[in-house]
C-alpha cells in the first residue's frame, strides 16, 4: 500500500514536468500561411517572399489594424539573400510565428522561374512543415506577389480558391496540375523534365455596379496552360491545343471538353466531352532514332450540338463526330510534339523516361546524347473515339422546319 502511495506521488510529481516543452507553439501565436509567392527581388541577387496568412478568428471582422483591417487574410512581403533569410526578415514585423503546415500553394514568379527554380524546390521540400502534396505553380507574365496579393475567387481566403483551381484542373483538361513532390521527383531524376501549372491574372471578374454595363473588371487568377522547363529554368508555356496535346502525351488526360465543327461546313460547333481515356505509349528503335507510338482509346459524350443536322441519323452523326474528334486529338498531340521538339526543345512529354523504361539498353548508350537526339525522335499517333451517349438525347437536333 505504501509503495503504491509513493508511486502515485511520484507520478503526480512527474506530471509537473509535462506542462510544456521546447516545441510549445500556441495557436494564437502562429501565422498560418495559406499561399506563398517567391520572386526575384528588385535588389539584384536577392529573393522576395510574399505570404498570404489567414486571420484565424476574424473571418473578415475585427481584424488587426496594421494592414487590410477587416480582410480575412494578412499579406506581407520581405526579401533576403535566400528564401530562409527573407522569411526570417518577415519575422521582424509580423507579430506571429510563421507556420507552413497549412500552406495551399507555392507560386514562383516568372522572372525567377526563367532563371532557376532550384531555391524554391530546395527550400520547400527540405522544410519539414510542408507537405509533398502542396500545389506549386508559375505566375505567368507577372510576379508571384501579384497573384498572392490578388483577391481572387469565391472563397474568403484567396489561396483556397487558387488551390481549388488546381484541384479541379482536370475538368478543362488543358494544363497539368503539379504538386511539390512531383516537381521534386522530376527535378532530381535524370530522365525527367519538370513542368509546372501556370497561373495568370486576367480581368475575368466583374464588380457589380448600379449602372448597366458599368461593372468594374477585377483581376482573377486563371489557370493558363503549362509552364515548360528545360533543366531548371522556364522556357515557355503551352496554349490551349498544345496544352491538351501535352496532357495526352504525358498520359495525364482525364477529362476535357473539345469542340468539333458541325457537319457540312455550315458553321456552328458541337461540344464533346472526353470520358475515361486510355492512353498507352510504345517505343521502337530502328537504327539510331527511336519512334514513339501513342495510342489513345477514349469514350466521349456529345454534350452540345449548336447546329441542326436534318440529313444525319444518330448513327451517322456519331460516326462523323468520332472521326472528327479523333483527328482533333491527333492534331493536338502533333502540335504538342512540334512545340516541344522545335520551339522549346524540352522533353516535357516524358519521352526519355519512356525510352529508359522500354528500351533500357538503348537508353544506357544514348542517355548522355539525349538533348541532341530528342528533336529527332519520331512519333506516330493512333486515336479511337467511341461516342456512347448524346447526353440525354437519343437523336440529333432536327427542327421541324
Amino acid at each position, binding site marked *: 500500500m505504501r509503495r503504491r502511495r509513493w508511486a502515485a506521488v511520484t507520478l503526480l510529481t512527474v506530471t509537473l514536468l509535462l506542462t510544456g516543452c*521546447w*516545441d510549445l507553439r500556441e495557436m494564437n501565436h502562429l501565422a498560418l500561411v495559406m499561399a506563398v509567392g517567391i520572386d526575384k527581388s528588385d535588389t539584384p541577387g536577392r529573393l522576395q517572399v510574399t505570404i498570404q496568412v489567414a486571420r484565424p478568428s476574424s473571418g473578415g471582422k475585427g481584424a488587426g489594424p496594421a494592414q487590410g483591417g477587416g480582410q480575412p487574410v494578412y499579406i506581407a512581403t520581405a526579401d533576403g539573400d535566400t528564401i530562409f533569410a527573407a522569411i526570417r526578415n518577415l519575422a521582424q514585423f509580423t507579430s506571429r510565428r510563421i507556420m507552413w503546415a497549412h500552406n495551399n500553394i507555392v507560386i514562383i514568379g516568372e522572372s525567377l522561374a526563367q532563371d532557376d527554380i532550384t531555391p524554391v524546390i530546395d527550400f520547400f521540400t527540405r522544410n*519539414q512543415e510542408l507537405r*509533398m*502534396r502542396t500545389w506549386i505553380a508559375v505566375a505567368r507574365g507577372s510576379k508571384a506577389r501579384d497573384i498572392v496579393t490578388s483577391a481572387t475567387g469565391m472563397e474568403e481566403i484567396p489561396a483556397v480558391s487558387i488551390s481549388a483551381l488546381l484541384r479541379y484542373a482536370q475538368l478543362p483538361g488543358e494544363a497539368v496540375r503539379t504538386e511539390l513532390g512531383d516537381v521534386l*521527383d522530376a527535378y*532530381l531524376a535524370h530522365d525527367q523534365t519538370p513542368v509546372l501549372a501556370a497561373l495568370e491574372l486576367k480581368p475575368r471578374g466583374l464588380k457589380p455596379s448600379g449602372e448597366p454595363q458599368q461593372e468594374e473588371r477585377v483581376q482573377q487568377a486563371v489557370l493558363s496552360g503549362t509552364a515548360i522547363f528545360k533543366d531548371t529554368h522556364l522556357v515557355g508555356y503551352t496554349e490551349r491545343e498544345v496544352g491538351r496535346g501535352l496532357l495526352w502525351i504525358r498520359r495525364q488526360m482525364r477529362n476535357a471538353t473539345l469542340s468539333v465543327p458541325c457537319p457540312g461546313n455550315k458553321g456552328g460547333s458541337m461540344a464533346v466531352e472526353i470520358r475515361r481515356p486510355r492512353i498507352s505509349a510504345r517505343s521502337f528503335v530502328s537504327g539510331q532514332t527511336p519512334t514513339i507510338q501513342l495510342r489513345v482509346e477514349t469514350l466521349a459524350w456529345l454534350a452540345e450540338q449548336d447546329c441542326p443536322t436534318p440529313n444525319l441519323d444518330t448513327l451517322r452523326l456519331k460516326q462523323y463526330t468520332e472521326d472528327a474528334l479523333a483527328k482533333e486529338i491527333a492534331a493536338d498531340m502533333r502540335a504538342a510534339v512540334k512545340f516541344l521538339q522545335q520551339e522549346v526543345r524540352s522533353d516535357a512529354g516524358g519521352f526519355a523516361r519512356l525510352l529508359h*523504361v522500354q528500351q533500357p539498353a538503348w537508353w544506357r548508350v544514348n542517355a548522355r546524347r539525349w538533348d541532341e537526339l530528342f528533336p529527332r525522335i519520331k512519333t506516330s499517333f493512333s486515336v479511337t473515339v467511341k461516342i456512347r451517349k448524346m447526353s440525354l438525347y437519343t437523336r440529333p437536333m432536327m427542327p421541324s422546319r
Partner: protein
Amino acid sequence: MKQKAKVKIGALQLITIFASLIFGKAIGFTNGGLARTVGRDAWASMTVALLTGMLLLPAIVWLARRGGGPLIAYIKRLLGRWLGGLVLLLFAVYFGFAFATSANTMTLHISDYLMTETPFAVFVVGYTLLVTYGVYLGLEVAARLSVLGLIMTGLLTISMMAGSFDKFNYTQMLPMFDHGVLPVLAASSIAHTDVAMVAAAALALLPHSVGPPGRWNRLCWWGLGTGGILVLVWSIFETAVLGPDVVAQYLIACMQMARAAELSIYLHRYEMIMVVLFAYGVVTQSVVTLYCAVTLTEGALPWRVPRGWLILGWAALTVPLQFLLGNDRDRYGIFLETVWPAASIALAYGLPLFLCLVALLRPAAAAQGSTKSG
C-alpha cells in the same frame, strides 16, 4: 539465466516479435540507403535480403534445437567458459548497437519532423528510460506489446496505402535491375541489417518458445515473412509514389511517404497518427534488443551482477552511443550504410554460423540436452 529459462513466449507472440524486429528501421532508414545505392531496385535488394534470411533461418533453428535450452548455457557448453563468454559478449554488443539503431529510428522521427526545437539528447534520454522500463518488466510484456505492435503496424501500412494509392505509378519501378543484378545483390547487405536482427534474436528467443521445436522453422518464417511483406509494401510504395530519387534524397524515407499521403482533402495530413501507429512496433524492437543485450551480458560475465544494475548499465552505455550515432545525421547515414551492415552480417549471421560449425565438429558437446524435434 536459469531464472530466465522460465520465461515463456507463445507462438503468435514470437511471430509478432520477429515481425516487429524487422519493420521499424527498415521502412525508415534502410529504404533510403538502398535507394541511394540501387535506385528503383531498392525493393529487389530488400527481397534478396529477406530470401537470404529465410534460407539462413533453418541453420539457426537447427542450432537452437541442438542446444535444448537457453542459449547462454549452450554456447558455454560448446565453446567453454571463457570463449563462450566472449562470444556471448559479442552478441550482447551487437544487440546493444541494434538497440541504439532502433532507438534512433524513433527519436530521429520525432526530432526531425515533429519537435524540431527540442534538443536531441532529451529524446535519447526519455526514450531510453521508456525502453529500460520495458526491459525491467520483462520479455513476456514485450511479447504482449509486440502483438499490439503488429496490429498497429498493419493499420499504419493500410493508412499509408489508402492515402497514397492515387499517386502510385508502377513505372517508377521500371526498368528492373537498372543498375545491374550484382549491385542489387551487393546492396542487399544494407537490408541485411534488419533481417540479421531477426536471425540473432531467433537464436536467443526460440528456447523460450512454448511451441514444440519442430515448429520453430515455421515460426521464424512466418515472423520474417510477415514483417518482410510489410517492409516490402513500404519499399514498393516509396519507390512508386515518391520516385527513387526522392527516396534517396532523404534520411528518413518513410516520413516522406507520410508527408505525401492524404486521405481526401479533409484529412490531408496525418503524420502524427502514423508516428503513433509506428511507435508500438519500434518500442517492441527496442525493448527486445536491449533485453537480449542485458540477458546475454548477464550470462557472459564470470561473476553475478544484479539484473537491475545490468539494465541500468546498458541504458547508461547506450545513451551516449545513441547520441553520438544520431546527432550528426550524415554520419549516421554513413554508419547505417557501411559500418553497420558489415558488423551485422559478421555478428548476427557469422557468429551463429560459426556456432553451427562448432556444433558439427563437436557433436558430443552439442548434443547434450538437445531437444527432440516434434
